[in-house]
C-alpha cells in the first residue's frame, strides 16, 4: 500500500477523526440541501442570524448545566420562528426582523457569559468549532437530524422548488406557502446548530451559502445544482479535515477555505465558458 494510503488509514483509525468525518459529512449534506433553496430565495444570510441566536442558547445551556447543543437548538428554533412572525405580523422587513431577534439573543449570550465567567473557554469552542472534540451523542444526534432534514426535503421537494421559483404562483397552485416557510426556517435553525460543532457559530452559515453559490456557477438545472452542491459540501469537509489533520490547521477555517477555493475554481471555469458550452449542447 502506498505511504499516502497508510497515512490516511492512520488518520481514520482515531475515534475522534471518525466522528469528525461522519458528523461533518452529515452536516454538509443537510446544509447543502437547504442551502440551494435559501440562496435562491435570497435568504443566504439568515444562517448568520440564526447562528447569533444560537449563541444565546449555548450560553444559557452552559449556565443552567444543560447540553449547549440542546440550548442552541431550542433558541435557534424559537428565534427563527420569531423572525418569521415579526416579518408577517409586525410588518418588519426580513433583514430588520433577523437583526432584532439575533442581536437580542446575542445580547443574552454575552450577558450570561459575563456574569458566569467560568465557561468562557467552552463558549470559544462553540464560536470557532471543535469538530475534533465531538461526542458520540452529538454525532448520533447530527446523523438523526440531518437524515430527518433530507427526508423532509425529499417529501416537499416540488413545493419548495415551486415556492423558491415564484411564491405567488406556488400559492395559486395550492402550495401551503406559510407552512413551508415555517418548515424551511425551522430546518435551517436545526442545520445551523448541527454545523455549529463542525465549523463553529462564526462560520456556521458558510456551509449553507458557499456550496450552492459554487454549484450555481455550473449553469446546471435545479436537481443537478442540488447534487453538485452536496458533492462540493462533502468534498470540502473531507479535504478540509484531511488537510487540517496533516498540517495541524484549524479544521473549521480549513473547511471554509477549501469551499472558497472550489468557488474560485468554478467561477473561473464559468467565466471561461466551460459550463455555458455544456448547457447549450444539451438544449
Amino acid at each position, binding site marked *: 500500500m502506498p505511504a499516502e494510503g497508510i497515512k490516511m488509514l492512520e488518520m481514520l483509525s482515531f475515534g475522534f477523526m471518525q466522528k469528525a468525518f461522519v458528523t461533518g459529512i452529515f452536516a454538509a449534506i443537510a446544509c447543502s440541501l437547504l442551502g440551494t433553496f435559501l440562496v435562491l430565495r435570497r435568504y443566504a444570510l439568515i444562517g448568520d442570524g440564526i447562528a447569533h441566536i444560537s449563541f444565546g442558547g449555548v450560553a444559557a445551556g452552559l449556565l443552567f448545566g444543560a447540553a449547549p447543543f440542546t440550548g442552541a437548538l431550542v433558541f435557534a428554533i424559537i428565534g427563527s420562528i420569531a423572525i418569521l412572525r415579526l416579518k408577517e405580523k409586525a410588518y418588519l422587513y426580513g433583514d430588520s426582523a433577523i437583526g432584532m431577534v439575533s442581536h437580542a439573543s446575542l445580547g443574552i449570550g454575552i450577558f450570561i457569559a459575563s456574569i458566569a465567567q467560568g465557561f468562557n473557554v467552552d463558549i470559544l469552542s462553540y464560536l470557532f468549532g471543535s469538530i475534533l472534540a465531538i461526542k458520540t451523542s452529538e454525532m448520533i444526534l447530527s446523523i438523526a437530524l440531518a437524515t430527518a432534514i433530507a427526508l423532509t426535503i425529499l*417529501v416537499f421537494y416540488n*413545493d419548495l*422548488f415551486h415556492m423558491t*421559483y415564484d411564491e405567488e404562483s406556488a400559492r395559486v*397552485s395550492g402550495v401551503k406557502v406559510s407552512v413551508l416557510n415555517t418548515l424551511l426556517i425551522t430546518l435551517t435553525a436545526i442545520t445551523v446548530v448541527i454545523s455549529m460543532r463542525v465549523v463553529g457559530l462564526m462560520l456556521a452559515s458558510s456551509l449553507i451559502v458557499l456550496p450552492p453559490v459554487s454549484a450555481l456557477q455550473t449553469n446546471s438545472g435545479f436537481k443537478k*445544482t442540488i447534487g453538485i452542491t452536496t458533492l462540493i459540501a462533502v468534498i470540502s469537509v473531507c479535504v478540509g479535515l484531511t488537510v487540517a489533520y496533516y498540517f495541524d490547521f484549524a479544521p473549521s477555517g480549513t473547511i471554509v477555505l477549501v469551499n472558497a477555493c472550489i468557488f474560485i475554481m468554478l467561477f473561473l471555469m464559468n467565466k471561461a465558458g466551460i459550463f455555458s458550452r455544456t448547457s447549450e449542447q444539451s438544449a
Partner: protein
Amino acid sequence: MSIIEVKGVSFKHGSTKVLEDVTFSVDKGDFVGLIGPNGSGKTTLLKLMLGIYPMQEGSIRILGQDIRDFSKHSKLGYVPQKAAGMNTDFPATVKEVVAMGLLSTKKHPKIIKKTDRRRIDSALEKVSMQQFKERRIDQLSGGQQQRVLIAKALVSSPAILFLDEPTTGIDQQSQEQFYDLLSKLNKSGITIMLVTHDTGRITRHVTKLASLNMRLDFYGTHKEFCALDKEHHFGHTHSLCLLRE
C-alpha cells in the same frame, strides 16, 4: 354560466383605498381584458381573485367556490408579471419549470409518471417550445420565457387562465404571436382574464373589456365600450376604439 363572480369587493393597502365596491361576473369561454391606468387596482383585483391577497370586503367565487375556501387549484392557471417576484436567473430547465405547475396541484407523493411526461410535452407543444425543454429558462428570450410560463399554467388543464401584464418587456412581434396564442387557447374553451396596459392590440382578441379605476367604470363588450363616452374616466378610449375599427 358565470365561473367568476366578484361581488362588492373593496380593498385597502394600508390606509390607501385601492378597490371600491367592484362587482362583475365572467362567463365560461370569455376572454376578458382588464384595463386601467397605473394604480387603478388591476393587479390587486387579479391577486384577490387568485387568493394571493386576503379578502377584506365583499366576496369572490371562482368555479362556484368561495376563494377563501378554494380547493380546485388545478383548474386555475396563472402567468405572473415576469419582472415581479420571479428569479430571472433561476437554475431550472424548461422541463423542470413546466413540471412544477403539474406537481404542485398533485397530492403526495409528487412523482412524475409517464402520463405526466406526456402532459408536459403536450403543454410545451401548445406553445411551440418543445425543442427547448432541456434548456435552462434563463437562456431563453423574454417571449420564449413567457411561452414557457403559459405551458406551466396550462399543464394542469386549467379552466381559467389569469395573466398579469404578460407582454411587459417583450418585442412587438412576440407580443402579436403571444396574443394569437391566447386567442387560440380561448377558442379551445379556456376562459381568460388578462390584465394589460396594451389597450391597442388586445381589442382584436378579447370578448369583453373591464375598465377599472378603483371602481369598475365599465364592463361589457368592446362595441358597448366605444358607444359610451368614457374618456373622462379612462384615457385610452380613443385609441381602443380607433384600433378595433
